[in-house]
């Protein structure tokens, strides 16, 4: 059963990956190629580009990715729990609630520290 399903996924993954490559190669054959330096320069609202594009950004943005990672892991723990939910007892539910509450403390901490503000 597992082999049946994942074999299809494997075959499809190869096809889905090759398909855009093949079409891109095909358009490379038929499209016009008349490039010039001006055309290939970086776009910046029609004016000359100022400085390098890879500039320093504020680390504030990083915090969102960080909080996301923590909640993502939480989801990985809770999905098997949800699947097993009908089979487990009341005590297990209490444990899961404690688990969620500990993470909720993290969310509230981030909230208090203004880590959830986009500035």
């Amino acid at each position, binding site marked *: 059963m597992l082999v049946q399903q994942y074999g299809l996924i494997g075959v499809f993954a190869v096809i889905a990956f090759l398909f855009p490559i093949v079409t891109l190669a095909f*358009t490379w054959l038929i499209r*016009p190629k008349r490039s010039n330096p001006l*055309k*290939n320069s*970086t776009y910046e609202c029609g004016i000359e580009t100022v400085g390098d594009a890879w500039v320093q950004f504020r680390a504030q943005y990083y915090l969102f990715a960080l909080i996301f990672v923590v909640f993502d892991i939480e989801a990985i723990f809770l999905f098997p729990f949800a699947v097993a939910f*009908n089979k487990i007892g009341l005590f297990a539910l209490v444990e899961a609630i404690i688990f969620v509450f500990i993470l909720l403390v993290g969310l509230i901490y981030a909230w208090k520290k203004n880590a959830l503000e986009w500035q």
Partner: protein
Amino acid sequence: MDLRALGESFIAMLENMGIPEGWVLLINWVLGALAVLVVALLLAIFLIWYERKIAGRVQDRLGPNRVGPWGLIQPFADALKLLTKEDITPDKADRITYNLAPIIAVFHILMLFLVIPFADKVVGANINVGVLFLMAFGALGTLAMLMAGWSSRNKYALLGGFRVVAQLLSYEIPVGLAMLTVVMLRGSMNLNTIAQGQGGVFGLGWYVWILPAVFVLYFVAALAEGERAPFDLLEAESEIVAGYNIEYSAMKFAWFYLAFFLNTWVLSAVAVTLFFGGWQGPFAAQLPILGVFYFFLKVFIMFFVFAWVRATFPRLRIDQMMSFCWKALVPMGLALFLAVAIVLKLGLPSAATNALLFIVNVVILFATLKLLGNYTKDLSHNKNKRLFAPELPRL
């Protein structure tokens, strides 16, 4: 006509021709994969026309109407144009990453088609971790946009990349929480099993009647996941020109465009599967082909709602959007998850459980709306605070 019987008779025919078993399996897989691919591409072509038509009607225009009857051939003309356009790669761009990004964007969206059940057991791969599969390959899309944003070496593109991280990653959490609640109710991550659990006459077994607030949560978060207005800040034309795909042209741009439309379709299909019974409908059990019809009907209605919202609403500001996700949707999702878990463990008869779930959902939904409403009302008197950045309610 039974679709599964058709497939089985085809396998039997191949085996009768004396082809070894392994090859039959391989032929089967390749044919199945090609079928899913063709369905996805035809859908993309049709969806572009459908959305443009809806947007046109909403805004009191006609939409495409020149090429073919009702402009139906228009997307083909567009595709042909994009195929033959000159493709510009900026000199400064990081070439490998720049070319890889659209490929990954298409790859991830096509993979998502594999686990969506079109009718009972008519699904590419009927795996037990279907919901996780959606989350896993959905996350690849974020990565494709990040790659595009970084490799273009353009300030707007990089800024778009940062917004991608902020928006798509953040809104993945409410989507995941909504899916988690449904999984808990059904006790399975298999999407076909989830759809099967929503039988009943006239759609009374649909989970949207039991978990309305969870559906609202999913829908709002899905609007953001699909980069649709009012959450389309990734490619806000008036702010960051086009965001991560600013330097892309011709076919590479077309791939991002296609991924965008198919993404919305997949989000609608998942909404239908999780909350609106998937392929369930009158006589679908007797006649599986009807299941396909019902499924597509529901998905196109759902897609219509997505397109309708996109054509109607103005755009939010980015700080409002991030606050809304983390300070309203995530707490609401966690509260729903815990409340549903507790109600399910009370051990009431199933009718009473369902009624109680509905009440709990409505209460949480209105409590969230009330808190948000109070907060915005507060703000209109207090001009120093930023609109729509709710603070922790005092307990």
